[in-house]
């Protein structure tokens, strides 16, 4: 009962954030890039509910548009990571042999680096930019999915339904796509939910360090970085983007947790 409640709470919160991101141009009172130097660093007013930043840009509008960046980077990263992870994991798990050995060594090497360090290193090489952030995060993100898929396929490939499909003459690709992958959807979906949260935090970290989305594009991480310079006079610049980021990650963690509980209680 409690699990279901937290799942719905997370889903409602995520839906709200996703809708805000989708309809950002309709919801925001101002252009997020529009500067008004006469109204800089306002804490809050009737015109600017969450105040303004150092260039007089409306903070609420920037936070709503920032949701677009966070969700876009998160979803793209998870999408690309899933594509690579599923392909590598399936090939490695089903074919075995030298392909498995090589892929697993590569994954071991990539996982030997702390994720954020590798993301920072890749971003430093590629330079700032939305597509570069997605690429850097996807380059480190696929390994977890590949390991999960490989492990699951190793345990499933000797099961009767796979042997039956093989005996009927199904080709390996058909067995993987039609017989094995559908069985992997629940754990994959859970990992993708946590992966989305991790990608959003990683994008925020990179933008906070000046290696992510380039200004003036509104990103929660870069907004937090800008706010750091005005902690004494304008703490709202730090508080509000951080709350938006935390709520997004919290919503995804709630959904992921609830799904994991459900899966565990089913398999128990």
């Amino acid at each position: 009962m409690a699990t279901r409640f937290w799942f719905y709470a997370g889903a409602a919160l995520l839906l709200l954030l996703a809708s805000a991101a989708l309809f950002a141009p309709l919801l925001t009172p101002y252009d997020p890039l529009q500067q008004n130097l006469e109204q800089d660093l306002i804490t809050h007013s009737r015109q600017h509910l969450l105040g303004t930043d150092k260039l007089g840009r409306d903070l609420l509008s920037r936070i709503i548009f920032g949701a677009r960046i966070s969700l876009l980077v998160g979803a793209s990263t998870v999408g690309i990571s899933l594509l690579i992870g599923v392909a590598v994991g399936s090939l490695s798990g089903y074919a075995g042999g030298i392909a498995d050995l090589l892929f697993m060594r590569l994954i071991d090497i990539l996982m030997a680096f702390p994720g954020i360090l590798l993301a920072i290193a890749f971003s430093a090489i590629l330079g700032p930019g939305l597509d570069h952030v997605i690429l850097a995060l996807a380059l480190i993100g696929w390994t977890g999915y590949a390991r999960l898929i490989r492990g699951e396929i190793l345990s499933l490939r000797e099961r009767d339904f796979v042997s039956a499909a093989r005996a009927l003459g199904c080709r390996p690709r058909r067995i993987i796509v039609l017989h094995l992958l559908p069985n992997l959807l629940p754990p994959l979906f859970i990992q993708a939910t946590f992966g989305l949260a991790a990608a959003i935090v990683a994008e925020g970290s990179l933008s906070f360090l000046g290696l992510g989305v380039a200004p003036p594009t509104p990103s929660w991480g870069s907004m937090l970085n800008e706010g750091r310079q005005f902690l004494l006079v304008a703490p709202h610049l730090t508080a509000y983007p951080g709350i938006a980021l935390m709520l997004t990650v919290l919503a995804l963690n709630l959904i992921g947790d609830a799904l994991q509980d459900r899966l565990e209680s089913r398999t128990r």
Partner: protein
Amino acid sequence: MKRYLLYRLALLVPTLFGVLTLVFLFIHVTPGDPVDIMLGETASAADRQELRQILGLNKPLAEQYRSFLIKLSRADLGRSLYERRSVAAMVSERYPATLELALCAMGAALFISFPLAIWSAVRHGSWTDRATLMFSLLGLSMPNFWLGPLVMIIFAIQLGWLPVSGRDGPDHLVLPALTLGLGMTALLIRMLRANLLRVMSEDYVQTARAKGLSERSVWLKHTLRNALLSLMTVVSLQFGSLLAGSLITETIFSWPGIGRLTMQAIAMRDYPLVQGCVLAISLSYVFVNFFTDLIYRWVDPRITYGN
């Protein structure tokens, strides 16, 4: 144990080799000319040539790699382009500060998480249990690049209880250590609580109770000891993550460790220094994982990994 050690060493060698290769390729996979990136496109041809020679970029790739490995075996990581000092010396100067911060963060995480997790498991299903779980979920959802400025505003700026930044005494450690350790605290609470609940329902715990052992004995000798065992791996692996997490925390609190040095090197495009910092952090991470595996196997000989 000896066979296991050899097996783990055999796995460690290709991983180390791969890490070194990836760090070496760091400069070479840069899109465009790395010299252009470091010096800017307006640099003179002579300056470019000099930098190319310093970095050894004028030699064939295989020779550069060989020279990189030979130098590395002598702990020579090259020279910083801006400070004109040995990268190895700069990294080793900063490393203790990062280690100090990571150890304190881990200490804080253990100190906070253990009582909370035990309390939560003992009062399973109560409002205190739910509150602890919610706290841990919030902790996991709160990125340290937000938590850092937040605790800075509250405890350093508004209340004035603790210093804002720097490394000058134990009080300077409190805010960075709490910021860095919160994620680990949250994770440990969840894992230890789950482990305790699992162990509490095991037959041997019921048997211990049926034998008439005191609740204290059941907890200390049977439940807690077994629940802590599987937690050991998480603690060690998290320690490696703390070293990496220091990149952000050290930047926020101007903590003079290797994380801040990395970010300064990236900002100045000092690639030999970036390479040295990345290598130091990743090798620490690899060795922490390696020793964790060995210790875990030593503590619990039932554990096997493959063949």
